[in-house]
């Protein structure tokens, strides 16, 4: 028996850079550096840990949908220890929304073959956090999402989901879609050996025709949502800043009272 894990990852604009919109109201990727979404590193890490704890053979494929540069995100995941990568790249994908992205990912996952899909809890740019649930819906398999702890045993995936009201133990049979939070365990740094090995690992490139997807189903045209406007948030007017010279707490209380909070 072997276990095929597909980890979905995203190449995102660096949050510490100057993120803004292009003229067509899509994210401007030219003016800001990209990187593997930090939250997806946790997904790669859990795939590696499942592999390390398994008696069977485990094959880990990292999958991304994105522009040419998105290969950088795949290389990072490969240097952490994933076995191979798939890059879905097509000019017609520009401006695709979450529904369209889930279509492309689901078709690619089915083409690649899988027993388990692992995703991060959300991307660090769009932050919607709905792709794992959409993948489960499209693939017709259980979703075991937002896990802070995950394990695979005897054809089933188990995990713990820490919600606001309760902490829940979850279980589902494979195949399944899992997403993990940043509480699932610190992601490893790629070793020098890992970085060198990654250069030799296979990266497959697929376009829309490889996945039997029509251009009209994706991109800005195929999106089921439309952005009408995007405006920079007005800069806050400079606030009052005082230095504590013994009365800082009282001064702050006075401010809060003046604003009717006390």
């Amino acid at each position, binding site marked *: 028996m072997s276990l095929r894990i597909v980890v979905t990852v995203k190449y995102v604009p660096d949050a510490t850079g100057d993120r803004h919109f292009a003229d067509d109201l899509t994210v401007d990727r030219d003016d800001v550096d990209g990187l593997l979404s930090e939250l997806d590193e946790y997904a790669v890490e859990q795939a590696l840990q499942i592999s390390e704890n398994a008696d069977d053979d485990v094959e880990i494929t990292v999958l991304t949908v994105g522009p040419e540069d998105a290969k950088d995100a795949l290389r990072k995941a490969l240097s952490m220890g994933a076995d191979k990568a798939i890059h879905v790249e097509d000019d017609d994908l520009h401006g695709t929304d979450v529904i369209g992205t889930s279509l492309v990912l689901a078709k690619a996952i089915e083409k690649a073959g899988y027993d388990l899909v692992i995703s991060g809890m959300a991307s660090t740019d769009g932050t*919607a956090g709905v792709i794992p649930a959409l993948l489960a819906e499209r693939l017709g398999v259980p*979703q075991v999402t937002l896990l802070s702890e995950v394990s695979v045993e005897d054809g089933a995936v*188990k995990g713990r989901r820490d919600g606001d009201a309760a902490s829940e133990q979850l279980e589902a049979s494979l195949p399944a879609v899992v997403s993990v939070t940043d509480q699932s365990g610190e992601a490893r740094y790629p070793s020098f050996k890992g970085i060198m090995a990654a250069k030799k690992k296979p990266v497959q490139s697929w376009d829309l025709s490889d996945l039997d997807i029509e251009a009209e189903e994706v991109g800005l045209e195929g999106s089921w949502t439309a952005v009408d406007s995007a405006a920079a948030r007005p800069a*806050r007017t400079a606030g009052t800043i005082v230095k504590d010279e013994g009365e800082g707490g009282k001064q702050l209380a006075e401010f*809060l009272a003046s604003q009717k909070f006390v």
Partner: protein
Amino acid sequence: MAEVLVYVDHVDGAVRKPTLELLTLARRIGEPVALALGPGAENTAAALAEHGAVKVLTHDASEYADYLVVPKVDALQAAVESVSPAAVLVPSSAEGKEIAARLALRIGSGVITDATDLEAGDEGPVATQSVFAASFTTKTRVSKGTPVITVKPNSAAVEAAPAAGVVEALAVTFSAQATGTRVTGRTPRESTGRPELTEAAIVVSGGRGVNGAENFGLIEALADSLGAAVGASRAAVDAGWYPHTNQVGQTGKSVSPQLYIANGISGAIQHRAGMQTSKTIVAVNKDAEAPIFDLVDYGVVGDLFDVVPQLTEEINARKG
């Protein structure tokens, strides 16, 4: 008038505040019809009617508690088929977003998550979103199908508007996927007695500067003097000083209270992503150069171990 379906978040019949906010927003685009599931669903009717629900659809089954997410999607889909609404509104919790997305895909509709405001537009409801760590505000529409929109807590002031609130039992047939993910155990979180973080009007947070779990008592005491929720930065959570469920920021909760008080928090972009839309922002930090001071309405450059206890004492004195 078009009907707008509102998914109800309740605990044994007690409706949570974000749902009442949804009813207020729903009235801008149509007549609210509410869907309440699980134990106590019928008991939500009075509160929902008081806030504008013309009809309350209810259904209870053990599947809602025993299996993850999908049974609720099945019920919401049944409600959409029965009501044919102009839009579907769902609270923007982690689960709410998953339910909304799956529903949208099933009914061939676009989905918008984490709206912070909603208004009627010529081509259907227009949602406001706050993106890129709240540095941009976008206006977005659903362009295909019935708009499915999740709305963040504190996006509208709750307004009462009495309506009929007629209770009607909804017929639900569960899908083959409904029982796919079993909930095998559940440990309820112990209540602190403080307001829920994402819903609170005031949030008092502590960061790296709090310097230890034992010192979070200072933050809690300030929070209690104001009837506030307690938040923590990622640095404080990663250090194990406070639970992850209280984390404010990109990988934690995003909050939008009337007042946010940041103590010993430098204000890294990841933290700002979770609190920048707060109405009034106050910070206490030793480092005058901390980026948090760029956001504040009022800031105190000083040692939080001096400032916070004095502030708490002063607030308690003023209240007394």
